[in-house]
C-alpha cells in the first residue's frame, strides 16, 4: 500500500500540470502571438503587495517598466505607475478545451500589461507563450513516443519471439533504420509538402514521421528482453502445456517488456519535446508565430540571448517539473508493475 503513494503523487503532479496546459487560454493573460513592438525583451515584472511608500495593498500589483532613452532593450522601473492585477478579467478571446469560446482570464490588468516572465524579441508575453506552447509540445511528445513505441514493441516482440530468419530480417531492417540519413528525408518531406499545408500540420506530420522511423532502438531493447524471457522456465512450462503463441506473448512475454517500454516512454516523451529544438534549428520545427516549448528553448541557442536576457531561461525552468514528472512516473510505474521484486525487498537486504 505504501508503495502506491509515489505513483499517485506523480500522477497528481502530472495531472495538475497537464490541466494547466490544457486550459492555457484561461491561465494565460494574453494572446501568445500578440506583438508589442515597443517592449521587446521586457524583463519579468515582479508582483508586489507593498508599494514604494510602504503601504500594504490587498491586490497584488506590478510597477510599469519604461524603456530608457536611446537604448533598445534597457528598461527601468517606474515606481510612480503601478499596474494592479485584476482577476477573472475579460481579455483576448480563446476556446477552452478547444471548443468553449471564452474571454475570461485568470488575471489581467488595465493600462499596462503584466508580463510575469518578461517578453521575447517581438514583445510577446513569455508566460502566455509558455502555457500555450505546452499544448503543442506535449501533443507532439505523446504523438512521437506513441508512434515509436507501438511500432517498436510489435517489431521487437515479433523478432525476439519467432527468432530465426524473421528475427534476422527484422533486425537487419532495424539496423538500416538506425543508419539512414533521416535528416534528408525530413528536408525532402517539408520541401515536398504543398505550402498550403499549414506549417503547424506540417510539423505534426514531421513529428509523426520521426516517431515512426525511431522504432529501431526500442525494438532492439524489447527483442533483448523477449529473447531472455522466452527461455524462462515458466514460459517453457506454459509452452509445454500447449499454450499458443499469442497466449504466451500476451500473458507471459509482453508483460516482461513493460519496464523497458516505460523507461523508454519516460525518456522519449521529453526527448521528442526537446527534439523540436533541433528541428527548429533546421527550419522544421513549430513555425513562428505559434508558440512551443521547442521554439522557446531555441531562443537560448543564440549566444546573445543566452548572455543578455536571463529571463529567457525561465520557460526552460518551468518545463523541468514536466520532465521530472514523466521520469518519476516511469520509475514508480516500474516499481509497481514488478511487485514480486518489491515484496522481497526488505530493508537492509543486500546492504
Amino acid at each position, binding site marked *: 500500500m505504501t508503495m502506491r503513494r509515489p505513483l499517485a503523487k506523480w500522477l497528481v503532479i502530472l495531472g495538475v500540470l497537464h490541466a494547466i496546459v490544457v486550459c492555457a487560454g484561461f491561465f494565460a493573460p494574453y494572446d501568445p502571438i500578440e506583438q508589442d513592438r515597443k517592449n521587446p525583451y521586457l524583463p519579468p515584472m515582479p508582483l508586489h503587495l507593498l508599494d514604494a511608500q510602504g503601504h500594504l495593498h490587498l491586490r497584488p500589483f506590478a510597477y510599469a517598466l519604461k524603456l530608457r532613452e536611446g537604448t533598445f532593450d534597457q528598461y527601468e522601473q517606474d515606481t510612480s505607475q503601478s499596474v494592479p492585477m485584476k482577476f477573472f478579467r475579460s481579455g483576448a478571446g480563446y476556446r477552452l478545451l478547444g471548443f468553449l469560446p471564452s474571454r475570461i482570464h485568470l488575471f489581467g490588468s488595465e493600462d499596462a500589461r503584466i508580463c510575469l516572465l518578461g517578453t521575447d524579441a517581438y514583445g510577446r508575453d513569455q508566460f502566455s507563450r509558455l502555457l500555450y506552447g505546452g499544448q503543442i509540445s506535449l501533443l507532439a511528445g505523446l504523438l512521437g513516443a506513441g508512434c515509436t513505441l507501438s511500432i517498436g514493441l510489435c517489431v521487437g516482440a515479433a523478432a525476439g519471439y519467432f*527468432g*530465426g530468419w524473421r528475427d*534476422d530480417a527484422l533486425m*537487419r531492417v532495424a*539496423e*538500416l533504420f*538506425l*543508419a*539512414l*540519413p533521416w*535528416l*534528408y*528525408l525530413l*528536408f*525532402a518531406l517539408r*520541401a*515536398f509538402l504543398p505550402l498550403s499545408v499549414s506549417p503547424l500540420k506540417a510539423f505534426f506530420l514531421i513529428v509523426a514521421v520521426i516517431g515512426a522511423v525511431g522504432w529501431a*532502438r526500442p525494438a*532492439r*531493447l524489447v527483442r*533483448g*528482453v523477449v*529473447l*531472455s524471457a522466452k*527461455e524462462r522456465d515458466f514460459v517453457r512450462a506454459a509452452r509445454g502445456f500447449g499454450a499458443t503463441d499469442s497466449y504466451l506473448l500476451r500473458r507471459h512475454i509482453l508483460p516482461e517488456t513493460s*519496464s*523497458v517500454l516505460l*523507461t523508454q516512454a519516460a*525518456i522519449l516523451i*521529453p526527448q521528442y519535446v*526537446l527534439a523540436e*529544438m*533541433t528541428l527548429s534549428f533546421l527550419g522544421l520545427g513549430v513555425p513562428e508565430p505559434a508558440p512551443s516549448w521547442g521554439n522557446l*528553448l531555441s531562443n*537560448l*541557442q543564440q*549566444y546573445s540571448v*543566452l*548572455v543578455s536576457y536571463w529571463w529567457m531561461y525561465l520557460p*526552460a525552468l518551468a*518545463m*523541468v517539473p514536466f*520532465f*521530472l514528472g514523466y*521520469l*518519476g512516473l516511469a*520509475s514508480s510505474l*516500474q516499481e509497481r508493475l514488478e511487485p514480486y*521484486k518489491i515484496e*522481497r*525487498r526488505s530493508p537492509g*537486504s*543486500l*546492504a
Partner: protein
Amino acid sequence: MRFFFRRLRHACFLLFGVSILAFLFTTLAPGNYFDEMRLNPQIAPETMAALRAQYQLDRPLPVRYVSWMNSVLHGQMGFSFAYNSPVAPILFVRARNTLLLTITATLIAWGIALPLGVWSAERFGRLPDRLLSWATAALLVIPDLALALGLLVLTVRTGWFPTGSMTSLDFGSLSLGGKFRDLALHMTLPVAALVLSGLPLLIRHVRAAVAEVLDAPFMLAARGHGIPRRTLLYRYALRVAANPLISLFGFSIGALLSGSLLVEVVMSWPGLGPLLLESILSRDLYVVIDGVLFSTMFLVSGNLIADILLYWADPRIRTESAAR
C-alpha cells in the same frame, strides 16, 4: 566462427542497402550544390548547367551510383563539389578527430556509469539512490545543446579552457608532453559535454539492470555463502545483468562517429560534425553519403561486437545459436 561470418554477411548487406537508400534520399531533397550560385548575379545560368554536367549531376541516378561505387572501390569515395577533391582524404582526417573525442568520452562515461550504477542499485530506493536518480533526471532534462552552450559560456567567463578547436596555433612547435597537454586542454570541454549528456542514460540502465538481478534468489543464496560484497556485485550480479548492458555498449560503439555531431558544431571541434552539417546544407552529396556510410560501418561493427559479447556472456544465446 559460422556465427561470425553470418554476421559479417549481414553487415555487407546492410552497408549496401544504406548506400542505395542514402543515394535515393539525397536526391529526394530539392536543390543541388550549384544552386547557391544562382543568387550570385554574375554567374550565367549556362555556366551552372555546364558545371552540373561536368559533375554528372544531370545523369540518371543508377549511372551516378555506379560511378560512385567505382570510386569507392578505388579508395576515393566519390568527389566533393565544394572541396573539388576526392572525399576520402577530407573525411579521414575529420573522422580521426571525431574518434579521438568520442572514444575518450565513451570510455570515461562507461568508467563512471558502471560503478555508479551498481552503487546506486545496491542502495535501491534509499536516499543516496534517490539523490542520484534526481541528479540523472536533472541531467536528462537539460538538452545536450544547452549543456554544451552552458559549458561554453562558462569558459568565456572564466577563461579556463580554449573556446573550441583542437590544437593551439603553436601546436607544431610544442614538445611531446606539451602537445599532449594542449590536446587534453582542448578536449576537456567537448568531452565533458559528451560525458554529461550520455551519462544519465547509462547510469539509469546499469542501475535498472543490476537492481533486477540483485533480487534474484541466486543472489541471496550467494550472499548466504558469504561471498564478499564486491565480488558478489561485480563478478556475479554485473555478469548476469550484462545482457541489456552489452546491447547498450553496442549502441555506444555505433554512435562513436555520429553521436558527437551537435557538440562538435557548438564547440568548433574539427570533426565530422561541422563538415557534415555544412555538406548537408550545401548539398555536397558524396560527402554526406560517405559520412552516412562511415557511421553505418561503425553501427554495424558496434552491433557485431555486441553480438559477439552477448554470445560469450549469455549461455542461453550460445546454446540457441549452436542448436540452429
